[in-house]
């Protein structure tokens, strides 16, 4: 045990003596949280929408007034008068405007005669987020205009009452579970993967191997040290990230214990996975090349950014064995939903089992000689 503690001591002293490394391993996930949280979380404001009015009737005026109301209040879009539909289409194509609404001739007459009145909406669907937002806004507007001013005594349509279980979750909050997971992964990647291979290349391991330290002590010493670094990174990002995203869950003792359990389990899982991948690698360039691929392979299928249900089968299969999936799910359950231990029990079980399993596979692969 004394020999194992020597390995841990060395790793931890190195960790605290390299503040740049520490800061960098925490900075990237935090930056991602701030940049992505704001970049993806916002609503469309000030889109340019052309209006081509061939009708000029009372209903067309009513419609244009409602457009003005949107421009003045929620500011999703502002309208620009166009005379020529072809010119408007061309301008949407070239990006001078974002969409065009065509009010056809006889629109007002068709509204009054209830003869299937139609409006045209030209959108640039190469930008799905913009086109989707404008379509939704226009649809809401049209629905509002066609709703009778006086409601019938008996409603003939089915109404859906939506009950939201949790307060509004903005994108930064939504992204926090992934950010915490990513911070631990980066810490393991740098502190457990790259440094391990660099130490090998520098001959530090050769120094260990000529001492009477056992294989078990060496493997577990390095992995405990790697996990401790990831736990520290996880705690830092959970606290800082929660404060930045405005989540008060870190002030609840029970939630804190649940978070700590998750951080420890995830650190062991990530570290075990990293050690298994690096156990036979000697070339310092390999982890650097590998980690770029791993980021994509593990991060996106985790459900941290997009729902797993939207993935094709093969990607869903990856997410089943991806420790990120359980890590993100667990943090989401505690940070955003206050789900309690019941909500994270399977995540904890998987992460601990994954970590121990990978270490059990990696230990026999670890060579006690050069």
């Amino acid at each position, binding site marked *: 045990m*004394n*020999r194992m*503690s*020597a*390995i841990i*001591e*060395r790793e931890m*002293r*190195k960790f605290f*003596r*390299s503040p740049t490394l520490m800061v960098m391993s925490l900075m990237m996930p935090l930056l991602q949280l701030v940049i992505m949280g704001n970049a993806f979380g916002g609503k469309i404001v000030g889109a340019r929408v052309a209006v081509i009015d061939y009708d000029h009737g009372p209903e067309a005026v009513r419609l244009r007034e409602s457009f003005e109301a949107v421009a003045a209040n929620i500011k999703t879009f502002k309208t620009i008068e166009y005379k020529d539909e072809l010119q408007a289409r061309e301008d949407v194509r070239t990006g001078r405007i974002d969409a065009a609404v065509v009010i056809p001739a006889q629109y007002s007459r068709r509204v009054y005669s209830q003869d299937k009145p139609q409006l045209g909406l030209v959108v640039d669907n190469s930008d799905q987020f913009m086109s989707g937002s404008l379509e939704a806004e226009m649809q809401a507007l049209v629905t509002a205009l066609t709703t009778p001013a006086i409601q019938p005594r008996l409603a003939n349509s089915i109404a859906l009452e939506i009950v939201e279980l949790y307060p509004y979750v903005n994108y930064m909050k939504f992204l926090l579970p992934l950010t915490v997971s990513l911070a631990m992964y980066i810490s393991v990647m740098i502190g457990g993967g790259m440094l391990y291979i660099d130490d090998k290349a*520098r*001959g*530090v391991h*050769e*120094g*260990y*191997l*000529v*001492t*009477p*330290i056992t294989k078990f002590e060496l493997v577990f010493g390095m992995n405990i040290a790697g996990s401790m670094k990831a736990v520290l990174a996880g705690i830092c990002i959970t606290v800082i990230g929660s404060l930045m995203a405005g989540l008060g869950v870190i002030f609840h003792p029970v939630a804190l214990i649940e978070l700590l359990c998750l951080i420890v389990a995830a650190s062991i899982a990530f570290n075990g996975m990293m050690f298994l991948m690096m156990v036979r690698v000697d070339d310092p360039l390999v982890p650097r090349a590998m980690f770029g691929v791993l980021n994509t392979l593990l991060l996106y299928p985790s459900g941290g950014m997009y729902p797993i249900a939207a993935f094709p089968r093969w990607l869903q299969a990856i997410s089943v064995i991806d420790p990120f999936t359980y890590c993100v799910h667990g943090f989401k359950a505690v940070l955003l939903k206050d789900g309690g231990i019941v909500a994270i029990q399977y995540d904890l079980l998987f992460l601990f089992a994954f970590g121990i399993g990978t270490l059990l596979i990696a230990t026999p692969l670890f060579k006690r*000689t*050069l």
Partner: protein
Amino acid sequence: MNAAAINGGAPEKTDAIKTAIEVEHAVKRYGSFEAVKDVSFSVADGEIFGLLGPNGAGKSTLIRMMTTLIPLTGGRAFVAGHDVAKEPDAVRRVIGVIPQALTSDPDLTVEENLSIYAKLYSVPKAERIKNIAEVLEAVDLTKWRGAQTKTLSGGMRRRLEIARGLVHNPQIFFLDEPTTGLDPVSRIAVWEMLDNLRKTRNLTMLLTTHYMEEADKLCDRIAIVDHGTLVALGTPIELKHSVPGANVVEVHFDRETNEWQHRLEKLEGVTSVQAESAGFYRVLTSSGSKTTMQLVELAASLGETLTSLSVQNTTLDDVFVHYTGRQLRDEQVKPAAFTMPPRPGAQP
């Protein structure tokens, strides 16, 4: 392998001398490539033993086999009486190893580096504190004990490596090119330190080096390894005597004639004559003084003028080149356009 040199260099097998290292027919193969071929030697207790050889000769492989870092493919090796293949942990407890690279952690202090290595050898706390103080004193780094390793000079870092290898009081010390990359002053300081350590701690040392002067000054016996084979073994003096010609006479005549080569070869004690350039000859002889006198008399009787004349003793450089040849090891991979002329007396 030079039988005379090896027989002459064998340690005396008496009961009084204990064997610290015994290597018997060691073989190391990597696939079809044989890095070490049937090497045998022994190192006596308290001896400083040098392994010399060109790059890729198999020195580091031999050291790594003896320090349990790589398994032997064939043969056996015993360190302090323990079989390296069967009792690797027992071997590791009695050895200290200084690798070629500087592997002390640059972010840790001198004392922390030593402390961590003492812990890896399970040295108890009280003993650890005492040992660290002693080895720091021995390598003259006491006042730098709190300094981060990255702030030390190359020579100081090398001394730290040596201290690290001693912190658990080993019986046998393996040093792989301990002075590579050091300036001449630091190198001499390391030699003096190793010599003192041997005297004060009765350490057995096995070192590899490229520096002939280092081997000559430090080592009681030297083994020359080339192409994975032991080509010579003996004390530095024995090895020098094993090379044909005890002295090298370099002579430059004012006027070149075709007769000089023949005339020089006929002088007493001369073993070989090499024409280096016009009128310039290197003469290997068993007696430098006798040959010099004869040469001067011969020149005077013929009315020839000597521009310069020098007599040198055979050095370990001559021994090294004699046994390993002058061919650069890189040339073995790619045929060279130019081949250095062989030194007189050198084996093909």
